[in-house]
């Protein structure tokens, strides 16, 4: 039933929600590994990074992950363009109804996070994976990319630290709305459990923000 070529608005929202929630799980994995860099030696971090870069299962997962990103981005754009088209004539006095402020700026936070993502991938992922611009380090007789050293070096630069922190805060805003919103889109709203989901959403955004931000701050202000 319905138009088979153009998906229903609701179907697009399900895809958005599922992709978004999936990406949140990735963020937790990413954060956990990143936090290893704060250990006295960067060896653990480098081994973990190596594992993530070479394990065949993770490699398959990596494709899925990129798929998740691409779907989330493309669907987000399509939905947003449709939303803009739904109101060709804007209001003179724009509405400021009592709603979550973050929810009104999802596309804006998304664009900032996307820009960050591109820079971030360029700095680490592409350099390590394709350009080979990362130094090697020997651990227990094996060669590893010394990503740890690279991270430590980057986070000595004030501008880089500032940019990174800003991007993470914006990401947290995005997640604060996005996480619980995903449940609503999937039809999960219940007087008993929705307040809990909303609390979890706030916690998720705070935990991820604190987790990620603690890395540059510790490195910049600590003895690394």
């Amino acid at each position, binding site marked *: 039933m319905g138009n088979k070529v153009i998906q229903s*608005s609701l179907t697009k929202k399900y895809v958005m929600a599922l992709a978004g929630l999936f990406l949140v799980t990735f963020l937790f994995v990413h954060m956990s590994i990143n936090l290893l860099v704060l250990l006295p030696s960067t060896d653990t971090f480098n081994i973990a990074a190596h594992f993530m870069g070479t394990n065949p299962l993770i490699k398959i997962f990596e494709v899925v992950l990129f798929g998740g990103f691409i779907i989330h981005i493309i669907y987000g754009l399509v939905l947003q363009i449709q939303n803009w088209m739904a*109101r060709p004539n804007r209001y003179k*006095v724009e509405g400021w109804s009592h709603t979550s402020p973050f929810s*009104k700026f999802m596309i804006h936070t998304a664009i900032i996070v996307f820009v960050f993502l591109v820079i971030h991938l360029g700095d680490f992922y592409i350099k390590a994976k394709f350009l080979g611009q990362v130094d090697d380090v020997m651990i227990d007789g094996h060669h590893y990319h010394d990503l740890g050293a690279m991270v430590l070096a980057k986070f000595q630069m004030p501008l880089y630290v500032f940019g990174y922190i800003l991007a993470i805060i914006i990401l947290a805003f995005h997640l604060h709305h996005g996480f619980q919103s995903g449940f609503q889109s999937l039809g999960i709203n219940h007087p008993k459990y929705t307040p809990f989901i909303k609390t979890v959403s706030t916690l998720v955004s705070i935990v991820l923000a604190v987790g990620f931000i603690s890395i540059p701050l510790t490195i910049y202000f600590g003895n690394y």
Partner: protein
Amino acid sequence: MNLTLKIWRQAGPNEQGKFVNYPVSDISPDSSFLEMLDILNEQLVEKGEEPVAFDHDCREGICGTCSLYINGRPHGPDTAITTCQLHMRKFKDGDTITIEPWRAKPFPVIRDLIVDRSSFDEIMQAGGFISVDTGGVPDANAIPISKVDADLAMDAAACIGCGACVAACKNASAMLFVSAKVSQFALLPQGKIEAKRRVQKMVAKMDELGFGNCTNTYACEAECPKEIQVTNIARMNREFLVAKLTDRVK
């Protein structure tokens, strides 16, 4: 009270519109917002000018005819009311009040502040009903219905179809309106029989008409004069998902 009104004037559907300022004076704080516009119109007619066209009918907040986007909010600066129930005591002497029509692609302006909301009727015609003909129905008490469900259905059914949800939504989405009807019927045993067909048809029509998508901002809920809740949107999301996954009709 003395006020300056900044009102959108547009002579016809295809004409260029603009804001025109009108001063009004000696308005009683106890008069309603529409009565204030009546006074303005009476003055305009006396001067031989054409009055400001706006939709209104019952003036007791139930028919859903009145609209108006007042100072950035549908139905103005009060909650849980329609424009016809808004009273001037909610404004301050000397205020400038900007009055705009509902803005959405599926709600084209017909004249001044009047918009065409027949798209809402089209959505209803797509499936917002239970297919029973007159006569030949069972006794009203033949099917007991849980009071909780009946009350929730009534909460959803209270929608007056005014379009404030669309007007308030930054995406001009009609999800609250559509989900209220879908919910009302999905909650009742009478409505469950054709629930899968209904939700798919109504959503398809909503999309076809060019309403925006829901981003769960909930401005609709904040501005709804009948306080219809976004739990209805979640229910519709659920109903639609289940319908898509399990409907045996291709």
